[in-house]
């Protein structure tokens, strides 16, 4: 088990290093000098530009700049926003991250709360109308573009009925629409997965044995089927983080929610590279950590994994 943990943690670190390198390299390819953006229309001499370059270390070779950036990032210092002068990137990003985490945790709770029971009931009542309609809904849920659902819900609940705010997060009710939209795709996927995994477990011998022993349906479902069927679903939740974060970028933009996703889009619009690369790096680290935790949890719950 210890070697397994060590190996996975090492792999995770290697991946984060590659990710940080790719992120930094990508920003270097970007058009528009950070100095141009900072100076704007003001008239400056070449000497002044050279002074700024030296001050920020922009005259140093690529690998030195990269090492400086990583060193600072490790201490939680992502520099200052070039656009919002004087504001530390880390401060901006922390505010946004808190909003994003709140929204997505709520969405995930909603998704799990709906998907697991629906998936299980659909599996147990296989080929019934409930199964048919819930799986039709799941297929639709995967195909629906979240930004369009967001727009339609804004029209219905903010425009037509006028009962929910269309943007921002100024009241508790403002959370309702973004959370629902964020939850749709996850609900659909998890429900499908839960159905499949429940069907798999239901046909296994130990369930037949439990039935043969004369156990009643409910204890069989909860004690034997549900616990085993949950395993593959738990893993997928961890691996979905990358997609969840992709979704949050669009949904936060649709609802004008001040989270990490909207900050990201704004920094892209303003070519605020410091903020952009900090957010991309943070999101990627979140994905790597999520996958790592999932692997370790899975190995802890299911001893069969450790052997491989």
């Amino acid at each position, binding site marked *: 088990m210890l070697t397994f943990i060590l190996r996975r943690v090492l*792999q995770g670190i290697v991946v984060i290093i590659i990710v940080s390198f790719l992120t930094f390299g990508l920003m270097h390819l970007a058009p528009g000098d950070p100095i141009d953006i900072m100076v704007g229309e003001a008239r400056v001499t070449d000497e002044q530009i050279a002074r700024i370059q030296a001050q920020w270390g922009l005259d140093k070779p690529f690998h030195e700049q990269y090492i400086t950036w990583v060193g600072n990032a490790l201490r939680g210092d992502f520099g200052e926003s070039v656009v919002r002068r004087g504001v530390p990137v880390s401060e901006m990003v922390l505010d946004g991250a808190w909003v994003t985490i709140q929204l997505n945790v709520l969405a995930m709770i909603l998704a799990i709360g709906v998907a697991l029971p629906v998936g299980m009931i659909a599996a147990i009542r296989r080929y019934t109308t409930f199964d048919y309609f819930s799986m039709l809904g799941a297929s639709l849920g995967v195909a629906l573009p979240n*930004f369009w659902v967001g727009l339609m819900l804004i029209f219905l609940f903010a*425009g037509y009925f006028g009962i929910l705010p269309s943007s921002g997060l100024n009241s508790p009710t403002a959370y309702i629409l973004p959370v629902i939209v964020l939850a749709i795709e996850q609900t659909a996927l998890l429900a499908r997965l839960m159905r499949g995994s429940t069907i798999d477990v239901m046909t296994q011998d130990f369930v037949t044995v439990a039935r043969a022993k004369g156990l009643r349906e409910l204890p069989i479902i909860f004690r034997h089927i549900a616990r085993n069927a949950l395993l593959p679903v738990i893993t997928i939740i961890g691996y979905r983080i*990358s997609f969840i974060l*992709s979704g949050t970028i*669009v949904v936060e933009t649709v609802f004008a929610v001040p989270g990490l996703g909207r900050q990201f*889009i704004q920094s892209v619009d303003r070519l605020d590279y410091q903020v952009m690369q900090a957010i991309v790096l943070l*999101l*990627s680290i979140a994905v790597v950590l999520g996958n790592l935790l999932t692997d370790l949890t899975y190995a802890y719950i299911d001893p069969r994994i450790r052997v491989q």
Partner: protein
Amino acid sequence: MSETSEDRTVQGSRQLEGSTADLAGLERKQRSEFRRAWNRFIRYRAGLIGLAFIGLLIIFSIIPGVFAPHDPAEIFPGQSRSGPSTDYWLGTDSRGRDVLSRTIWGARTALLVGVVGTGIATLIGVAVGSIAGYFGGWTDAILSRFIDALMAFPLLALLIVLAAILGPSLVTVTVIIGITVWTAYARVARADILSLRERDYVLAARSIGVPSTRLIIRHMLPNILGPVIVLSTLGVGSIIILEAALSFLGLGVQPPMSSWGRSLSDARPFITSYPHMAIVPGVMITLTVLAFNLIGDGLRDAIDPRQRE
């Protein structure tokens, strides 16, 4: 027949013999297998409906001008944001362009990006995955970590950065989607090639000195084609959503070109009062993605039954 037996004695043309025999065997087998797969596929009615819908879209995207009542880029003065009427069946958008015509022309963008993007991703993914799976060792370790790193980026964040850096356009969108979403194909190809490598026929081919490239392309790839085709079909839908999302954020297809995502972004500021501009483009995205997913499900049952849920 006589040619084959003659060749067998001539060492120098062993390659020729191998390739013609392969070709003949492959062709015969493929045809019957294709027919069997097709027979299995048409039993799944939802997949057929999906296929019919995509067929219709293909016709739309080849000759959109025949179906669209107006020029998609034409601005009708004094007609902005008007509701459905006999002249403009689905109304007009915020600039006074015909929503129906733009939706029909949008099919071309969606299919083009979806299919070409998937093609690029499949090619890169299968190539990288095969190399990692076949050679193993350090090659595999390095490629696998690179794949992990690419998968660690939230896909949309990476696409947004790339689109912003390269400048958004139809070509940029297609290419950046293609070069970022291939990781799933690489993983499947790697795993399948890895297991094929241990087969006797691969060992036999290696022992008579078939070069690696030829061995992978001619003898191993045909065997992993099934799962790859299924994955590609299921992938088109998600790429169409990505294109729509990028265009919605203003980082995809640029005006005057029509894109369903772009139409939604144009409709967004007026959504509470003029929802008609957003309804049909969104429905089209959903149905197209659904159709590709249904075809993919049908294909999975037909060609690759072990992947069945």
